[in-house]
């Protein structure tokens, strides 16, 4: 579709306020041969119960329906894996459903759980996501991932998904990055930042103390992208408990934190970038009609929208999500983000799609220092820190769990529990990881509102999950 009707642009409405009460996650790793997937899901749900001072059995007694995010059945060689997990969590005979939208599976799982509670079907829903990609050799893993591209028109071309994605990065790199060394360096800084933040996160799979030079010297995967520009392949699970107001309060009696308001919105775009047609840019509340008139002059070749450089699905997820939650300017209204940094360059593209910077100017979000916990230019807190978890580059990309991990990370900041969750020496030890001597508390001080973006591949599905402290809602929040 390249034109929208008013019906299609209706701002989504929840029939009652919805809350995220708690969440939890397992350790994330490239391979976890010592545990079955269900053991990782039990770890995540047990942590969610502990976070609010309940036993798993007490928490389970509130759950009414279950939403399971798991993308790649063929990796696990198990259809209806959701039914296995559901039984092992001891939640039969409650209703449950599997959700799969590629890399956006975690976000889509939250989308379904929130709608179930908003509609009144359930007062308490479990959103649980997981993935395991360690049970085939890497080249076969690449083959299985490439099955997410079109099987007749794309996958036979090398069976390598990175290639289908990277053509889009190339176009952005040349048109909006102008193939500048300075832009290449900015991309490298994103990798340094995310691997660096991962050092403070015991759950994270790829903590690294590296420099821009290290990134620029890492092997080329698909020029200009290098190995350290790319996200991880992971095993792990994450969950969230979604409730109506009354149940949220009841469940939080012994909880050190309050339940958070949650909204989730979704957008989509063609599975094959090849099928994208030109259209007008749908504007976010902080953008103006004439703002992009000269985009093609400033960035020759950049006037085709969404072309191969914008993610229309992300734009639409933000378009709906901001209007539902009252966000008029993400940089002013939100305190932190977790973005889907599948590649450093797609991180930059997303800044523009979600309106943190206008189209063409995404790199400024990094170069200004706004995206850091502590702005390296000023030494003061970053204006809108992103991916403190380490993101997909530093923490994990256990596909079905990713969007839930991101949301949980945002929640720990609003709950003022980041240091407790990430600093606990016992947890580091349990995961067989050593807490660095220079471990730093990355709590975003005073965080009241945040957002997580969950994104599939070349942009077929994207969700925006917005969390707010219920005592600090925005004026026009639903």
């Amino acid at each position: 579709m390249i034109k929208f009707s008013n019906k299609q642009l209706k701002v989504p409405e929840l029939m009652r306020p919805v809350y995220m009460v708690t969440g939890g996650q397992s350790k994330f790793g490239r391979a976890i041969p010592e545990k079955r997937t269900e053991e990782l899901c039990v770890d995540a749900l047990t942590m969610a119960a502990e976070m609010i001072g309940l036993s798993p059995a007490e928490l389970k007694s509130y759950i009414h329906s279950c939403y399971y995010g798991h993308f790649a059945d063929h990796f696990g060689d198990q259809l209806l894996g959701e039914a296995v997990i559901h039984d092992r969590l001891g939640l039969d005979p409650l209703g449950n459903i599997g959700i799969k939208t590629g890399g956006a599976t975690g976000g889509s799982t939250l989308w379904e759980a929130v709608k179930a509670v908003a509609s009144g079907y359930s007062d308490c829903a479990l959103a649980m996501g997981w993935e395991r990609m360690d049970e085939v050799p890497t080249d076969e893993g690449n083959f299985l991932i490439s099955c997410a591209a079109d099987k007749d028109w794309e996958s036979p071309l090398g069976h390598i998904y990175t290639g289908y994605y990277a053509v889009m990065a190339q176009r952005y790199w040349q048109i909006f990055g102008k193939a500048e060394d300075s832009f290449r360096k900015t991309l490298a800084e994103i990798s340094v930042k995310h691997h660096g933040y991962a050092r403070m996160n015991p759950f994270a799979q790829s903590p690294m103390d590296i420099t821009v030079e290290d990134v620029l010297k890492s092997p080329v995967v698909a020029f200009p992208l290098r190995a350290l520009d790319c996200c991880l392949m992971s095993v792990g699970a994450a969950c969230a408990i979604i409730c109506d107001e009354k149940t949220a309060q009841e469940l939080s009696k012994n909880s050190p934190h309050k339940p958070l308001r949650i909204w989730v919105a979704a957008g989509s775009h063609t599975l094959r970038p090849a099928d994208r047609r030109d259209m007008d840019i749908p504007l976010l509340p902080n953008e103006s009609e004439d703002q992009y008139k000269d985009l093609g002059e400033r960035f020759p070749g950049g006037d085709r929208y969404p072309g191969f450089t914008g993610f229309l699905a992300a734009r639409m997820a933000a378009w709906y999500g901001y209007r539902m939650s009252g966000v008029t300017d993400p940089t002013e209204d939100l305190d932190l983000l977790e973005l889907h940094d599948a590649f450093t360059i797609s991180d930059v593209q997303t800044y523009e799609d979600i309106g943190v910077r206008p189209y063409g100017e995404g790199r400024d979000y990094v170069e200004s220092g706004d995206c850091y916990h502590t702005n390296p230019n000023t030494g003061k807190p970053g204006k809108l820190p992103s991916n403190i978890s380490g993101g997909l580059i530093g923490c994990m990309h256990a596909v079905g769990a990713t969007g839930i991990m991101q949301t949980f990370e945002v929640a720990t900041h609003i709950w003022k529990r980041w240091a407790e969750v990430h600093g606990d020496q016992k947890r580091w030890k349990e995961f067989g990881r050593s807490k660095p001597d220079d471990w730093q508390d990355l709590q975003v001080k005073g965080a009241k509102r945040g957002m997580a973006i969950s994104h599939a591949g070349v942009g077929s599905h994207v969700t925006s999950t917005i969390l707010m402290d219920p005592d600090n809602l925005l004026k026009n929040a639903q």
Partner: protein
Amino acid sequence: MSMFGQVYVKNGRYKLKGDFHHLTPNTPIKNADRSWKLMGVTNPRDMTYIHTYGGEAPFFEALGEGKLLGSRCDNKECEFKGTIYQPFRIHCPDCLGRNSAVDMTEQARKNARIHTFMVCERSGAFNILDKPIKFVNVEFEGVSTILMSYLSVGDPEIGMKLVPIFRTTNPTYTILDLSWVPDGTGEEQLPEGFSF
């Protein structure tokens, strides 16, 4: 000797010949860190799928005959009538009417250009293209969409003029039967089995 699985259609049914899978025994996975205790097993499997191209079959058949087919919505009622699609779409995405096939081979010879590209050193299992793979996304004047394919000669650049080549000798009947070379490439430079 086993024979690759082969399929044809008769009386509206698939007819199968040959071996569609091969048996390989599973083996235990043991843990060298813990006195070789059992951790799991391998599950080998080798299968052949049977897949229909449905309404796209004419596109894939035409490649082996040296032709590039696009499709066009000719529905008078459609707001976007006349839009041409490459990739070939069976139905119009707006009105869902059945599109007409259009031979765009000449058009592709005259005005195909690289919209974007990627040189990729890696591949997944079962890849049969030579590495590095030079992905090219090809834009055509008057066509609303941009085709993903691969370049067989030279180094890609955005804006480079290309011409299509087709595997007309022993076609594979897959998208790999279509490739591209820079305008001005000589016949002798084409990969084996391909012609203009």
